[in-house]
């Protein structure tokens, strides 16, 4: 079971709700993924279009727990205000805390992130910070009160997979008791499986599913890959080796004469 603060979930796949070709595709993708948590955002509402009101109905139909984000925030202050609006809007203490350092990489601004996390944790938020594999930021986020960390694998939407696998491994080793979710940069089910094999607790995805040729099938693909990676972590992987080792028994190989006595 995945533990996020005091809630527990069977699914280890958190799914974003953006960029799908249609609301129906989103719905079917969420079902195919058997996701229990979906991410949402807070955006300006136009009095005419009232887009958000319609989207809210869609979300309610999904029957998932929502995880609002602070996507696009560039300062701790913006993120804190956005988080507070999100708490009221979605009726949840959860916040995916995202403070971005620049638009090209969408890298977390670790300093503003820690600043905002400190404020929000103190206000009773359950903060899920979008961070990097950096250990010094992780320490401060945990000290602030975060029991979940969400490091990137690669820049958001880049689909490049684990660009610093060593860093992700080290983070896992350093925070054995913290729930670790890889958020951002996952492009393929094999990436998701790899993350889970490292002992990560869950994966948060959006673009790789929503922009796939067939998002519903891709959602299913990721769901199985994440299960696969988790099972593998639990079952215990064999160690890679530089040498080959026969799988078929060598003893009794026909036509060998070296055993003649």
């Amino acid at each position: 079971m995945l533990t996020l603060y005091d809630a527990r979930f069977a699914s280890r796949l958190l799914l974003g709700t953006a960029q799908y070709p249609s609301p129906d595709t989103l719905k079917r993708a969420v079902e195919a993924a058997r996701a229990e948590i979906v991410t949402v955002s807070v955006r300006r509402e136009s009095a005419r279009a009232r887009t958000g009101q319609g989207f809210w109905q869609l979300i309610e139909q999904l029957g998932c727990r929502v995880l609002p984000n602070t996507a696009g925030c560039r300062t701790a202050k913006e993120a804190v205000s956005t988080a507070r609006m999100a708490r009221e809007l979605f009726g949840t203490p959860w916040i995916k805390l995202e403070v971005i350092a620049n638009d090209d990489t969408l890298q977390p601004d670790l300093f503003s992130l820690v600043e905002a996390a400190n404020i929000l944790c103190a206000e009773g938020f359950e903060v899920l910070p979008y961070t990097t594999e950096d250990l010094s930021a992780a320490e401060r986020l945990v000290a602030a009160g975060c029991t979940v960390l969400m490091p990137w694998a690669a820049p958001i939407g880049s689909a490049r997979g684990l660009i610093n696998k060593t860093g992700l491994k080290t983070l896992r080793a350093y925070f054995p008791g913290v729930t670790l979710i890889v958020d951002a940069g996952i492009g393929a089910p094999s990436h998701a499986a790899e993350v889970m094999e490292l002992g990560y607790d869950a994966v948060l995805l959006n673009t790789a599913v929503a922009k796939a040729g067939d998002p519903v099938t891709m959602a299913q693909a990721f769901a199985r890959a994440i299960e696969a990676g988790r099972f593998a972590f639990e079952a215990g992987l064999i160690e890679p080796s530089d040498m080959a080792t026969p799988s078929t028994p060598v003893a009794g190989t026909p036509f060998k004469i070296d055993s003649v006595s």
Partner: protein
Amino acid sequence: MQILLNGERIVTRARDLDELCASLGFAGARIATAVNGNFVAAGRRAKTKLTPADAIEIVAPRQGG
């Protein structure tokens, strides 16, 4: 009075944030609000007087990753 609503200049007769929301048809809608960068809870909208040039945010749920 001229204010900034969601980044656009508008003219409103609303005196407080609650009236502004109502005048935009947001009564009962799933929205949240901020004034000049600070969150204003639903229960405090009626008490939040508007001042010319205030920057108001009215937000709602949207897709997110």
